């Protein structure tokens, strides 16, 4: 059967099968990305509402303590799970893995489609909690029992149940996606694509998918057991407790057990969003500095090592839970060890830039911005990783500043960089560069304006999660000026994201035509016969890979990049590729 005939047979024809119930990894990637950005905008608005209260306390009647806690909780959960995790794995993973390893599609396209629709269901259930009596949960994104399910915390009627249900649904979706990503990387690489010829983006997403597969079960276990405690009256996590003057039926449960389970998921989750960012940044820097990535093998090993270590550091989130000092010592040590492979990555990025032919394109600006914010956030992580330093800083704005720099802003900068970089492949048109630079500078400088002062507020002892600070003698009045300043910066950054959205929409029709390979990149996704790639990606025959993904500025070469599918000198090209039979 010829390719054309099989493509006719298998290619979706109607609008519905092509764009809605699509099994094409590229369409699913766009669905994931658009949904994640949409729900991320909700998270952004919530953060700005929080800042309104913190910067101008009491000026807005509709923000009472309950709604403030609900904003805090929903902002955190949306950003970590429904935006970052979904966008990196479901968005970038779906689009890039098959194209970068030279596959026609994911190995299980139907499962892939199902993964998106289940994810969308999780988002809908989550957002539905805004409309139930009592509103969404206000338990904080960590959802610690017993307060998460007891009266006094906002949203303990329907909100917490919907939150936990939505997380369980999300985990089902993430598992279906993760199975696909891992198996595709292992089994569907094209001829010549050895593991160590894969671009680092694939390595980052691949390792993060494995982490997600093994870490999300911990969240599932804690979520299901908390649902039992809430709905069926069991006492897995609930101790004997008097609530509102009434002794409750619960007795004997262990809230700290929940914390262990939650953070056994929660810490790998940090790397689930960091590793894809590491991979994307590596490829952006190498491509836009026209230089091979410094220490490629070390970069791969560092990704794998960070992935493994991420499972043995979780209790550094729990130093104040009253643990055995030796236990804390162990986790402080593992936490500091994980800084070694991470630092190797940062050095290698900087060494890749060194004497490179640096093009300050918009993706490159975001990549360099990422290195800056990631180093700042990483260094404060070393402070907080030490038990003795962490205890006075625990639950202050120093922690807020730390994790926003390292796992909030940094991955978001990587996402922006990635979107500016791959948008031309997805749509065939460039994003507007002037708007892009405006977006970058406001976002990047705004980040520092927002989070740098928070480190000082944390040193003052300003506690996080508080609705207001009246009557705290140790906080000087000038701290309020700082808070007002942060709020203005946050609102500015928030509004300027509209520039980005406008750019995304406007450029689909009006952007400069991009051509197949506008950045002169080597990896396979830029070598497709069509831009945007059509169903099946590669036309009649699969590409053959003859070299790694980083042949930039090779001495003696005609151009400053050699794509992966160009034979080495003296090689005869391989011709007989199997014909595509379409999806099973």
């Amino acid at each position: 059967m010829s390719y054309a005939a099989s493509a006719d047979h298998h290619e979706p024809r109607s609008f519905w099968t092509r764009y809605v119930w699509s099994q094409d990894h590229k369409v699913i990637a766009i669905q994931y990305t658009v949904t994640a950005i949409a729900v991320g905008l909700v998270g952004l608005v919530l953060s700005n509402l929080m800042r309104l209260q913190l910067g101008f306390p009491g000026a807005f009647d509709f923000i009472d303590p309950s709604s403030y806690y609900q904003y805090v909780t929903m902002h955190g959960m949306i950003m970590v799970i429904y935006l970052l995790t979904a966008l990196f794995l479901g968005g970038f993973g779906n689009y890039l893995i098959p194209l970068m390893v030279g596959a026609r599609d994911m190995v299980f396209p139907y499962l892939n489609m199902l993964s998106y629709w289940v994810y969308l269901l999780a988002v809908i259930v989550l957002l539905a909690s805004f409309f139930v009596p009592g509103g969404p949960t206000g338990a904080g994104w960590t959802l610690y029992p017993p307060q998460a399910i007891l009266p006094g915390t906002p949203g303990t009627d329907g909100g917490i149940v919907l939150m936990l249900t939505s997380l369980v649904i999300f985990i089902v979706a993430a598992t279906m996606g993760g199975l696909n990503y891992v198996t595709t990387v292992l089994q569907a690489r094209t001829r010549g694509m050895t593991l160590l010829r894969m671009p680092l983006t694939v390595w980052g997403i691949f390792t993060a998918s494995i982490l997600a597969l093994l870490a999300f079960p911990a969240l599932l276990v804690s979520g299901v057991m908390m649902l039992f405690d809430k709905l069926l009256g069991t006492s897995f996590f609930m101790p004997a407790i008097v609530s509102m003057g009434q002794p409750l039926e619960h007795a004997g449960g262990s809230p700290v057990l929940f914390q262990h389970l939650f953070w056994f998921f929660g810490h790998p989750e940090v790397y689930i969003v960091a590793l894809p960012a590491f991979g994307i940044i590596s490829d952006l820097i190498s491509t836009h500095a026209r230089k091979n990535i410094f220490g490629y093998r070390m970069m791969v090993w560092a990704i794998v090592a960070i992935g493994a270590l991420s499972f043995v550091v979780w209790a550094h989130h729990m130093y104040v839970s009253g643990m055995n000092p030796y236990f804390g010592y162990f986790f402080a040590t593992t936490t500091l060890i994980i800084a070694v492979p991470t630092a190797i990555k940062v050095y290698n990025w900087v060494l890749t830039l060194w004497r490179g032919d640096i093009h300050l394109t918009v993706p490159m600006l975001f990549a360099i911005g990422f290195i800056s914010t990631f180093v700042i956030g990483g260094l404060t992580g070393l402070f907080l990783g030490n038990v003795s330093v962490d205890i006075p800083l625990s639950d202050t704005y120093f922690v807020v500043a730390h994790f926003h720099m390292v796992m909030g802003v940094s991955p978001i900068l990587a996402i922006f960089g990635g979107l500016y970089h791959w948008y031309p492949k997805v749509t065939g048109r460039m994003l507007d560069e002037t708007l892009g630079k405006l977006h970058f500078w406001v976002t990047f400088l705004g980040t520092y304006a927002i989070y740098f002062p928070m480190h000082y507020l944390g040193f003052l002892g300003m506690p996080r999660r508080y609705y207001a600070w009246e009557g705290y003698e140790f906080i000087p009045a000038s701290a309020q000026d700082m808070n007002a300043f942060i709020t203005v910066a946050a609102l500015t950054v928030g509004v300027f994201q509209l520039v980005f959205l406008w750019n995304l929409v406007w450029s689909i029709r009006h952007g400069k035509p991009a051509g197949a390979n506008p950045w002169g990149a080597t990896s396979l996704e830029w070598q497709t016969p069509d831009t945007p790639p059509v169903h099946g990606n590669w036309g009649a025959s699969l590409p053959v890979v003859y070299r790694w993904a980083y042949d930039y500025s090779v001495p003696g070469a005609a151009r400053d990049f050699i794509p992966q599918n160009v034979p080495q000198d003296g090689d005869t090209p391989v011709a007989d590729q199997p014909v595509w039979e379409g999806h099973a």
Partner: protein
Amino acid sequence: MSLLSALTAKPWLPEPPPALASGPATPAARVALRVLLAVIATLFGLFLLAFLIRAQLPDWQALGGAPGRPLANLAPLWANTALLLASSLAQQAASAAAQRDDAARLRRALALGALFTLAFLFGQGWVWWRFIEMGHFVASNPAASFFYLLTGVHGLHLAGGLVAWGRVFARAARGVAPQRLRLAVDLCARYWHFLFAVWLVLFALLASPPQTLRVLAEICGIR
């Protein structure tokens, strides 16, 4: 190529052009099932860790052991274990029949596998009903809560397996040649063996007297 040599390759050095893959590659579905089983093993492992930790707290009343406890008589659970073992063996027989291209035997073995699985699920339901009759509700005691939770999650995984089984059985009933079903039937069998092994671990821990759980917790460093 071993994983180690794959991870220590020097991709920047020129290599001869890649040869065509020699021999058939492992089917993607087989790899995916291994990954899925690792995920499910992690899930049950974490449930059981939570079980062990919770079992060390003072209000724990073990299910097994002394007379009068809900699991003092293990006969019903042993009977269920035998049913699940039978279903696992039937799935294995189905896999063997598919290897030998024996369509009739394949259909019979598949049907038996599902029958025994349903019998196991009904048996578990019966044990639940006995628990309720004896006044051990889901919130009565943490050990009882874990019994309902763990058997429930295990049953759900079997039910999920039955969905996959249903697709295979429908194809077999339509007369699809057994050799085209080999992979799917074999993967079903592996999934059943795995869930049987999980059940053995669950059974052993749920029925353990408190002393055993204490020793296990000490080995795990929880106590």
